[in-house]
């Protein structure tokens, strides 16, 4: 008699992406829903696969700096940094101290702009348009700083093998420091909202919980892992000038979207701190050493991107071109975690949860 209620009801199947306004990037999720509750999420990628790893085997190892910078437009500098550090380790190049500090400066500027961008997109995903505007307004200050120091807003192209390509004058350092002060004042305009607003918390707290165990087993990295209580931040290993500056990983334990937001918000302040420290204590030295010869051997280089650990595996054979360039980006590592936390949430939470791992599809697919 009750066959209508006992038989399994038909489910809603939705293509979420690739052309979708909530993510500027083409990620396709096949969502299966029951009354707006997600029961299954399966991703399809490859909409943005450019074959960079193959291209990097064609271009010479110097050109690769610029190519690999284009793996991702958001953390462009850090990609170049990871690659350059890898080649430097292969060739045994000692990078001058000032260059190492400058690398920290640009890395942290990249991190600031990436986190702000992400915060804005998150605000947009839960429909808080004016918060998005406010955050991106602050982000423009970071972009201005990048343009002032590197000559471009997005593709800094300042990292090179053996050092950096641009130096900062004392005046520029002063400008950046002043810019950072202004930026901090801008933070006060929106950070309390992100942390305290009731509607924001309603959308973030308890949503998409990733337990510490899950995070460990699924290999989550970056803020996703740190929000689940795993202290994993590669800046601790002290590459570039981080060893001198000292970094303590920012940790939250709840593992929900709110915790991930908090981690990134706190990292904004951490970046400010690191930037000020780096700018104030920047030693005087040349900014680059000349690089002679060709790389040979294999190396794995890891650095901390805004989204987490990026891993470069480089294999060189003594010629100008490399034999293998392998890029494992943080989003690729966080995708399994995303797929684990999507089922059970509501459709309205899908954009929020998806964004909470700060997906960079462009990175993921290379």
């Amino acid at each position, binding site marked *: 008699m009750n066959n209508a209620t006992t038989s399994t009801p038909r489910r809603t199947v939705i*293509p979420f992406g690739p052309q979708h306004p909530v993510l500027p990037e083409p990620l396709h999720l096949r969502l299966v829903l029951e009354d707006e509750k997600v029961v299954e999420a399966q991703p399809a990628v490859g909409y943005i696969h450019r074959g960079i790893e193959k291209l990097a085997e064609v271009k010479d190892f110097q050109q690769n700096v610029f190519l690999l910078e284009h793996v991702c437009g958001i953390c462009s500098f850090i990609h170049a940094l990871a690659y350059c550090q890898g080649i430097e380790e292969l060739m045994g190049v000692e990078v001058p101290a000032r260059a190492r500090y400058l690398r920290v400066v640009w890395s942290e500027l990249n991190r600031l702009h990436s986190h702000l961008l992400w915060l804005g997109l998150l605000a947009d995903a839960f*429909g*808080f*348009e004016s918060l998005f505007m*406010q955050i991106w307004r602050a982000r423009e200050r970071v972009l201005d700083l990048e343009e002032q120091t590197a000559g471009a807003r997005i593709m800094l192209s300042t990292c090179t093998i053996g050092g950096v390509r641009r130096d900062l004058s004392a005046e520029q350092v002063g400008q950046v420091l002043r810019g950072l002060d202004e930026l901090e004042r801008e933070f006060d305009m929106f950070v309390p909202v992100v942390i305290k*607003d009731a509607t924001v918390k309603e959308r973030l707290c308890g949503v998409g919980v990733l337990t510490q165990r899950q995070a460990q087993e699924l290999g989550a990295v970056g803020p996703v892992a740190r929000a689940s209580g795993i202290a994993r931040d590669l800046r601790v290993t002290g590459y570039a000038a981080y060893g001198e500056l000292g970094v303590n990983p920012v940790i939250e334990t709840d593992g929900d979207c709110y915790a991930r937001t908090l981690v990134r918000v706190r990292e904004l302040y951490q970046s400010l701190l690191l930037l000020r420290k780096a700018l104030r204590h920047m030693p005087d030295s040349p900014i680059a050493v000349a690089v002679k010869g060709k790389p040979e051997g294999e190396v794995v280089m890891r650095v901390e991107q805004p989204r987490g650990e990026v891993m470069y595996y480089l294999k060189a054979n003594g010629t100008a071109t490399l034999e293998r360039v392998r890029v494992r980006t943080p989003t690729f590592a966080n995708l399994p975690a995303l797929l684990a936390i999507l089922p059970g949430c*509501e459709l*309205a939470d899908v954009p929020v949860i998806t964004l909470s791992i700060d997906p960079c599809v462009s990175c993921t697919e290379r």
Partner: protein
Amino acid sequence: MGTVMALFFVVVVAPLVGLVLNGADRVVTARLQGRVGPPLLQPLYDLVKLWRKEPLVVNRVQIGYVYLHLAFMVMTLVLLALGGDMVLALFAHAFSALSLVIGASSVRSPFSRIGAQRKIMQMLAYEPVFILLVVGIYLRTGSFMASAVGRLDAPLIVSLPLVFLAYLVALEIKLEKSPFDVATSHHAHQELVKGVTLEYAGPYLALIEVAHFYETFLLLGIVAAFFVRQIWLGVGVALVVYAGAIVVDNVCARLRTTWMVRCLWTVPVMLAVCNIIWLYVRRTQGG
């Protein structure tokens, strides 16, 4: 003659007022966000452009419901302007929204269909408030006719303050503002792309916009004409209410559909119910 004037006003002037109000909304929103924003008459430009676009559709059925959407909306205004039955006007207003729902669910895009369902959820959330408003008016006037409101000695806001508060929340839903813009919104960035209006393009979208202008006028008109009654004061209060709605739109995240229904049914609807009970009690005691 007065009837003709009233009809002219609600059919011709109302959408223009709604248009300017919507333009003002966009400018104010932009300013609140630290932007310059579009010109005041931007909705007009949008309309002209949409009118000239290709009328893309998925099937022929959905078109009918756009016309019904607009027709019922105008009908609501006309019924109220004629001083007609408020329950009928309420139904007409509900069916205006419902037409959109049915039209949106007649296409196969899951986004549109889910948007339609969320629209129904919205209706479940706000319709009680409107119905309670009508009940409240009946209890004050002893008649379901809108014209009876005009014969009252005191503005409704005096006897229906809690209903008015609930009405403000319902207004936020009806205007598709945050935190309740779950079915569709004037900003595209959400999980349902454009929700209900997803599969309507060009002139049909323009008609939906026009209906929205009517609705803006209607909702604020109720504030001015029913709750406040003195014309200039009413206009002032209505504008303040609208400004408030815009501000709330800008300080809230969008909330989930279920949360919306729960929220509406716990606080505003209960407030309105209290107000109604109070009126009942007063009536039975006062004779």
